[in-house]
């Protein structure tokens, strides 16, 4: 049920054109899964019914860069596959966004060797980094929500000085950790 349910059926809404466009874009982010390693498994789990990426309009995985808006780099990128990644990025139509998923794509992770790129952001622009090894599907969903926020705001929101404002979507923990250490109470009541 959207806003139309609350309105009389013959009414008119006015809005800004780019808001409608952004609404359409952010509700149908079609990802291209560039899954090269274990993070790709978690990416698949995200698309499956338990986590259901379809709730965010991003369930249509497109293996053709021409049809995708969001490049999800999931896994380590060797220097040999980097040119492929760059070519795929170039082939995507504007507007396009990039998520770097996992420690490997963002920093090289534990693979600090001659053959692994130490962070794809050295070579292609990255919008959102999703940390973790691998990130839980919730994390990736949060990354996609960050992309949606970026789309809504026509980019990352900035204050008057041009400084980036936080997107304020981080999920806060809903529990209070108890104080530690506690007294050893074995045998006592």
């Amino acid at each position: 049920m959207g806003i139309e349910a609350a309105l009389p059926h013959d009414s008119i809404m006015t809005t800004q054109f780019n808001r409608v466009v952004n609404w359409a874009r952010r509700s149908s982010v079609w990802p291209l899964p560039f899954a090269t390693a274990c993070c790709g498994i978690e990416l698949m789990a995200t698309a499956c019914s338990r986590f259901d990426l379809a709730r965010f309009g991003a369930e249509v995985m497109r293996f053709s860069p021409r049809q995708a808006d969001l490049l999800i780099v999931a896994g380590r990128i060797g220097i040999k596959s980097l040119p492929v990644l760059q070519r795929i990025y170039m082939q995507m139509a504007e507007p396009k966004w990039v998520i770097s998923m996992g420690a490997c794509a963002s920093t090289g992770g534990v693979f600090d060797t001659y053959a692994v790129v130490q962070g794809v952001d050295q070579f292609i622009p990255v919008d959102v980094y999703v940390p973790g090894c691998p990130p839980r599907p919730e994390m990736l969903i949060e990354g996609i929500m960050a992309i949606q926020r970026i789309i809504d705001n026509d980019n990352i929101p900035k204050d008057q000085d041009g400084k980036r404002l936080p997107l304020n979507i981080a999920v806060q923990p809903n529990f209070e950790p108890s104080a530690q250490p506690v007294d050893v109470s074995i045998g006592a009541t």
Partner: protein
Amino acid sequence: MTRKPVLEHPTLAVIKKAFPDAGLKATEFREMTTVVIPREKIHEVARYLHDSPDCDYDFLADVVGIDYMGYPVEQPGRFAVSYVLASGKHGLRITLKTYVDPSVDTSGIDFDPELEVDSITDIWPGAEWPEREVYDMFGIRFKNHPDLRRILLWRDFPAHPLRKDYPLRGRGEREHYQTLNRESR
């Protein structure tokens, strides 16, 4: 405690008889027997092990390269190539090994006549890719190989990275590449 190698592999007697002056040596570790063969003889011995009905090693399990730089025990050469063979008929496994010593600086990719071993692809065609891998990673070339190109790295990679004198993080290969920005077309 030192343990004497137990050299009772049935193939040893056979090849000792067939190649009395080839300078073969043998080692054993945990019931795995290795025959150390001079570089010039490796093709001949491999051919014999494959063809002779007493040996009948019909399966080549792997070809691997080894770099012994900094190895705690003195070795007859800097690099070695190992061939792991198996015989389905006799239920046996044996490893052949040949040592090679480089004659030019090992930091580059220049051709080194000392680091060249006869290819055994004509005996076991399955050796083609493992030999390419040994060439790619160690720079040991195989004479008469049908298609000796790098298999994992790309053609212009400036080193052989499994050599121990190659730094783990490379010599800048992973940093030097074109960068795309949001305006790139």
